[in-house]
């Protein structure tokens, strides 16, 4: 059953990634001004170089041909060359992925620590004033655009990972609080409390097994939120990660770069969600 589930997730991932990359390529191809390349205006280029540039563009005009060649080359490890930055995409990604992984990783860790601390304390204390306070705090962050938080992090000289954490934590808190409150309201947990079981024992033996699989699903979604948050944070904080690269590629309509980043982002988010689903399934020990 588990193997079937993993295979199903794998197939979905491959199909979605292929389709996502194709849609991104189609969008760029259909965008106005696609065939115009300002490199052709460079007076230092001779006629042969300009012809070579035009031929490259010609290949990209047929979207199916571009996509077929793209995967053919990708299988050999060649992800193409960025039009706007003039560098191999694989090198650009190798240079920038570590920073984004670090930012998103630390951001997620911070956001989960704060969200779970607030959600658990709210569920334990069950004091309406405290609950209202945490709701107002997280609500305020939810009402701030991610890009504003990025700008404020520049203004206050706060690390980018903290900005990502602040963007993600209210969303995680909202789900975590509801799940924990629901779990603490279950009859067998109320009975356990009435019998005088310690809070830690109730948490680890009764609450986590109930809320755990759903919290895992939230963890999968939070990766997608954090990756999305990395775009404004990196773009506005001047951090040279994949988020900034995505922003630059979008502005420059850099087809090879944009297709690769779309595939990468789709893969990361789908892997996170599929991973969360499979682990949740294993924890539950039953088909979902």
């Amino acid at each position: 059953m588990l193997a079937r589930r993993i295979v199903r997730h794998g197939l979905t991932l491959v199909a979605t990634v292929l389709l996502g990359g194709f849609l991104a390529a189609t969008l760029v191809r259909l965008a106005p001004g696609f065939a115009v390349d300002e490199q052709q205006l460079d007076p230092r280029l001779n006629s042969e170089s300009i012809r070579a540039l035009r031929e490259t563009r010609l290949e990209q005009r047929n979207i199916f041909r571009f996509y077929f060649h793209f995967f053919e080359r990708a299988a050999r490890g060649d992800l193409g060359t960025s039009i706007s930055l003039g560098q191999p995409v694989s090198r650009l990604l190798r240079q920038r992925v570590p920073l984004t992984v670090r930012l998103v990783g630390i951001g997620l860790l911070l956001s989960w620590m704060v969200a779970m601390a607030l959600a658990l304390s709210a569920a334990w204390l069950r004091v309406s004033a405290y609950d209202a306070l945490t709701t107002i705090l997280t609500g305020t962050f939810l009402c701030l655009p991610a890009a504003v938080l990025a700008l404020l992090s520049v203004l206050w000289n706060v690390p980018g990972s903290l900005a990502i954490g602040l963007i993600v934590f209210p969303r995680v808190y909202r789900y975590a609080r509801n799940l924990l409150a629901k779990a603490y309201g279950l009859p067998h947990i109320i009975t356990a409390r009435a019998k005088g079981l310690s809070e830690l024992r109730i948490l680890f033996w009764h609450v986590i097994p109930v809320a755990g699989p759903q919290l895992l699903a939230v963890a999968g979604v939070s990766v997608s939120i954090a990756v999305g948050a990395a775009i404004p944070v990196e773009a506005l904080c001047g951090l040279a990660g994949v988020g900034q690269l995505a922003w630059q590629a979008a502005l420059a309509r850099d087809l090879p770069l944009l297709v690769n980043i779309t595939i990468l982002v789709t893969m990361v988010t789908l892997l996170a969600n599929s991973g969360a689903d499979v682990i949740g399934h294993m924890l539950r020990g039953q088909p979902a």
Partner: protein
Amino acid sequence: MSVWRGVAIAVLLLVVGVSVAAPWLAPAGYARQYREAASASPSRQHWLGTDEIGRDRFARVLYGTRISLLLAPAAALLSTLLAALVGGLAGYLGGAWARAAMAVTDLFLALPWLFLLITVRAMMPLNVSPMISVVVTFLLLGLLGWTSAARVLCAAAESLRNSDYVRQARASGIPGARLFWVHVLPNLKPVLYAQFWISIPAFILSEANLGILGLGVAEPMPSWGSLLKELEGLVSVGAEPWKFVPLVLLVVVVTSFQLVLSRQEDEVAA
């Protein structure tokens, strides 16, 4: 909570009222330049000072509020209609239709919202007239923002499809199209209303994000996104606090929407 909801509704009505009255409150308009008073601090002539090319910030906030508050509901309406069409039909038809529609939905949902938005927005012409940029920005929000609502509507339509009264209607020989328009769609109204209202603050925030990243409404047209872009040049928060007025207004409006919507969200959850 109902008191807070009442206060939130009053705040929203006040903000909408003031923004609608923008031509009377700021008759000079949002684009007029006072070149002798560029980057001026608040004064009796310019309540919120002027920007770096001498435009009255108060007028720009009023007109920007009007644009954001009028077009976000329009985008929400478009996305809700699309969600009703795609999600509602998929849920009602079921089988391969539902699987195909949900596969497309999953594809959109697999990409982070902001990434999807900046990618597609960048594909649109950037060097266009301000009015077209407003339409493109909000049209895009509406055209891309239907996916999560479609999932909810698909589930709701699916449960309606299997309900007794729809089975009875089908057994009575009512054609499928009529069944959908007359019996299924009207019963999806509560979910549609909730999705519509939930989308508005999400779209306001998305437009703000796009504006700050330079992909939103084009100059000289103001919107909350383009007004917030001014924060980029700030040296410290305390130096020019009046530049935070658009941000405070945005937070107040989005918070008010959240308070008003808490009931709608409960309905969707139910």
